[in-house]
């Protein structure tokens, strides 16, 4: 047998007791393996009781996010060789309630995401007879970076404000709101601003910036949030200095 790596996995089994515990597993190391392959090895060969989420294995579904040695990582995109000589600590994403082992409850995130209306909002739908909504490459470029979000929640796990301010809407939801605001086909910016200009929206962000560092898709949520703050501030000044202009 070749090289091995010791994985120390944070486990939580509600039927066994209220406290999580560490469990160690020795897994083989293959050069082409990602961390997810090693965790799958534990599940398939060593301990079938281990629970974790995964699906696509190619950085698209965003379901295999975990804390690897304290850093939020997409385990299907993190080479296992980078953890040598080990041991490597695998934990559930920080800041989320843990349901079991490495599986976290994302219900709160989903409800926050729904609040920012991450879809194209139109005041009056364009009739089919008028054809499609055309968009120039420049208009596409405006929102494209923010459209790459896969809801992997690494940004939430990296953000210290998320556990400190549980009502904070959070980086991915705000980045996705901005993705639709910047879309030339969308008319829902005002509705989203009402949700995000509250204290649990953009103003809860203190600009730590780690959300953008850990994002596996280079979405840059920190940029989306700061741009949103500038827009909200401009909006406020406009309403104070030019009240007769009303709401646009």
């Amino acid at each position, binding site marked *: 047998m070749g090289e091995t790596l010791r994985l120390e996995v944070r486990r*939580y089994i*509600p039927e066994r007791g*209220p*406290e*999580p515990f560490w469990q160690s597993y020795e897994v083989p190391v293959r050069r082409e393996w990602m961390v997810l392959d090693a965790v799958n090895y534990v599940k398939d060969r060593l301990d079938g009781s281990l629970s974790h989420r995964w699906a696509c294995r190619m950085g698209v579904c965003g379901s295999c996010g975990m804390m690897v040695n*304290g850093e939020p990582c997409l385990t299907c995109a993190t080479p296992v060789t980078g953890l040598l000589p080990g041991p490597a600590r695998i934990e559930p994403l*920080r*800041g989320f*309630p*843990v*349901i*079991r082992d490495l599986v976290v*409850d994302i*219900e709160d995130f989903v409800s926050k995401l729904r609040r920012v209306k991450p879809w194209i909002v139109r005041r009056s739908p364009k009739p089919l007879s008028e054809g499609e909504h055309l968009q120039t490459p*420049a208009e596409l470029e405006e929102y494209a970076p923010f459209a790459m979000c896969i809801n992997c929640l690494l940004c939430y796990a990296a953000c*210290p404000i998320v*556990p*400190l301010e549980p009502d904070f809407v959070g980086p991915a939801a705000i980045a996705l709101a901005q993705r639709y605001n910047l879309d030339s086909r969308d008319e829902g910016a005002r509705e989203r601003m009402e949700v995000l200009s509250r204290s649990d929206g953009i103003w809860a962000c*203190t*600009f*730590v*910036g*780690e959300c953008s*560092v850990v994002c596996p898709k280079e979405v*840059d949520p*920190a*940029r989306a949030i*700061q*741009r949103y*703050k*500038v827009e909200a501030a401009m909006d406020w000044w406009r309403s104070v200095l030019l009240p007769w202009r009303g709401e646009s």
Partner: protein
Amino acid sequence: MRGVGAVRGPIVHRERFPIFWWLGKLSYTRFIARELTSLAVVYTAGGLAALLWTLGRGEEAYRAFLEWLAAPAAVAFHALVLAAVVFHALTWFHLAPTALVVRLRGRKVPDGVVVAGHYAAWLLASVAAAWWLLGGRG
């Protein structure tokens, strides 16, 4: 609703967030340093206001204030305050492009140029202030 005693749904575990979370990672520590040095900015603004206030109270009060400022302990303390203010300002120079989208002839100005613009403006303001303070105004 979830949690211990919930009628439906799993019993979840919520990890306690450590109070010294910001010591665990350099970027978090740098962030806290940036936030804490904002106190030095507030202190500097307050100090300038105090200077104007003593000026309004007459020559004697103003001179007493200047003497206090010239004391070695005050000089050392204010050197530290200056360092903190400079650190605070520089961190924001480097963060500015994240919030500021500058366009020239329809093209987005690169982040590095936005940062360089801030340094240039700082240099310009410092030169202008030095010129004025050192008697350049004639």
